[in-house]
């Protein structure tokens, strides 16, 4: 009885091994036939330098944009008010009562672009170092010239261009003049509305929020007046919850006469 069981077990084991062997062979054939697609799906394929840079730095840029959007367009605000645990930069300010504000950042779009450019230079260095290393390891001769970084705020997108010409040589040569990282973001639109609000603050000391919400149906504009006469404006895109907030102190009224 015991012998019989043992023979059956052996036969079963052989069958399992045969099935496993067939599966390994089939998988081998499949991998041989479809390796590029499978590798790409699993992220094993060698990335192109462009996508390598995009994936390396995209998140960093996004983080910087998110941070500066909550801080009035500056990554390291120097003249700010604390609101909701955030340093919110004054874009228009007066230290006096009864007076309209003085514009502090008239070229806001350019300021934001330069803030991002400055902040990502270290990240860019790391990413391109890593790109160089990666290709060298794979037997390429890498010739990378590090040039300028240019950030552009455009309608519905932010484009970061790295003027870093790259030549990869391994048998043939691959040339790249520059690398572009494109982010879908409507900071450009929010900055345009910010400028409009700032002009009203500078001229009249206040801005009506509903005007903007009537024009831009997906925009939420909030105005939070503080006790010291500061007004925090919060612009939110209802579609993607992108926010831009900034502070202004204009036509502030003192308690009493302000003696």
């Amino acid at each position, binding site marked *: 009885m015991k012998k019989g069981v043992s023979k059956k077990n052996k036969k079963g084991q052989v069958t399992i091994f045969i099935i496993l062997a067939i599966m390994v062979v089939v998988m081998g054939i499949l991998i041989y036939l479809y390796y590029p697609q499978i590798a790409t799906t699993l992220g094993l394929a060698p990335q192109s330098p462009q996508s390598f840079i995009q994936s390396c730095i995209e998140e960093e840029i996004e983080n910087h944009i998110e941070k500066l959007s909550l801080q009035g367009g500056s990554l390291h605000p120097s*003249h700010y008010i604390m609101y909701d645990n955030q340093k919110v930069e004054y874009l228009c300010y007066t230290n006096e009562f009864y007076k309209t504000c003085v514009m502090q950042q*008239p070229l806001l779009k350019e300021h934001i672009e330069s803030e991002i450019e400055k902040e990502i230079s270290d990240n860019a260095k790391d990413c391109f170092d890593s790109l160089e290393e990666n290709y060298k390891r794979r037997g390429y001769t890498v010739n990378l010239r590090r040039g300028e970084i240019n950030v552009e705020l455009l309608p519905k997108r932010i484009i970061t261009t790295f003027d870093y010409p790259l030549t990869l040589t391994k048998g043939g040569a691959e040339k790249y003049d520059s690398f572009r990282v494109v982010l879908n973001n409507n900071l450009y639109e929010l900055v345009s509305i910010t400028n409009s609000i700032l002009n009203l603050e500078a001229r009249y000391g206040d801005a009506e929020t509903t005007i903007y919400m009537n024009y831009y149906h997906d925009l939420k504009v909030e105005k939070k007046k503080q006790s010291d006469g500061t007004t925090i404006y919060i612009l939110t895109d209802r579609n993607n919850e992108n926010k831009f907030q900034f502070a202004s102190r204009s036509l502030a009224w003192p308690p009493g006469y302000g*003696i």
Partner: protein
Amino acid sequence: MMNKKNFVLGIILFGILLINFTLVSAQVSYCCEKIKDGGPWCMNAPENECDDSYRSVPTSCEATSYCRLGTCIDTQEGTCMENTPQVTCNVEDGGFWEEGNADELPQCQLGCCLIGDQAAFVTQTRCKTLSSLYGLETNYRTDIQSEMQCIASASPGVKGACVFEREYQKTCKLLTKQECQEMEISSGYSNVKFHEGYLCSAVELATNCGPRGGTTCVEGKDEVYFLDTCGNLANVYDSNKINDATYWTYIAGVGGVTICNPASTTCGNCDYFSGTTCKEVLGKHVCEDLSCEYEGKDYQHGETWCAKAKGIKDNLPGSRYFRMVCYNGEVSVEPCADYRQEVCIQSEVNTFRTAACRVNMWQDCYAQDNAKDCTNEDKRDCKVIEGFSILTDENGVSLFLDEDGETADNSCVPLHNPGFDFWEEGGDAESLCSLGTTMCIIDYEAGIFKTLGGKRGKIVPNEECVDACKDRGGEKDDCEDECTAKCVDEDGNLLDSWEEEMNEMCVSLGDCGSSLNYIGKEGYYDTNDFIVMSSEEEDEEN
């Protein structure tokens, strides 16, 4: 009886502001190009606040070359920023500084920029920038001089069915005539033909696009649209016309096709300004209601109203006005300026409420010496209170004239009493509240009552007061009545009603007197703490 006391206070009230400004200007004497520790640019401040690495001169910023205010023109973007000091308008960043307001500068003159089917009321440079950014041709019209007119003049090009052959199939795209022509050139499709006013689902076009391809919301539009089977937009969704062949043939406005009434529940003609917009809900595209519910009440989309904030009804210390805003189904809170320096005003037209925070014009109330000026709503937010006069002459006689031009013991006080920072040293709460300080002199005639009952005696009119009154031509009885203390009863006990009246007057000046704060907490003092009883006789004895 009122004491002769507030004469100076009342008269010099205007002077308070003047003194304030003088003091401030005496202190703020330098124009600092930059304030220390990363502070703001171009502020008038004491010299010790200026950053040493930057310029500072002992004058107002308006008088300096570096901090004079003008307009910063962004030469790349074509935007103009007002009230900008020259120093912050960097040439390297594309800035160009000009003296004067934007209105005065030719580079900042606005016109109507028509881009595709959109319009923007912007400068010419900005129009060119937008044109290049969107890759569209623009038409800049300087003859249109209002934003509303500009937006109204934006018209989408006439659309129609652009029929073409692709991979041996006759198909279609809903385009403008120009777009169709461009597609013909760029794509290389054969037999391209434009049918103005037709939808791609029109049977007579015999394309592979048929009706009933579903519905969709379109970015930048409010309506729910039908789609044809090729994914092209058709007319606005109308459940009654799903099987209407004409509705699937012509664009609305052509061939007698009309769009349904937005009020109908079967219609996708949502309208943002009427409070609906297209939204995808559980895979369906519907007209979403944008109205709000707040504290059990319904508010229409776009309505604004004044909040019933704590303590605001009585303008209690710490209370503040708030404006509420309903947009896109969400209620947001907009605080008005603190210390009740702004008040919330509300109006209603056809059940639609609109509110705004506007400046509380209380500042010169105390100085008004007549009821007409006091209640002039165009100039100030004040009211007349009776029973006490802030403005008195050296004899303590009221200088306030009532509506009939008669002298009255009245005062002009803020309609919405302002808040003060009374807890801070150096604030002006004390000086403003002291306007309400009053003295009630009670004259006793010693006699039998005093001897028997231990009381001070009979209360009699103040002789000096009566004499002065008579000198002014007053009748004896009237003068005696006027000059008899009104703060006590016959037995010389302080009247609660007088105490309350005086406290009410104090409270009406601002955050003065004794009251609860906005959360119902008692203040530092009770009314009794403000009342100081003194006696000449006792003083003499002492």
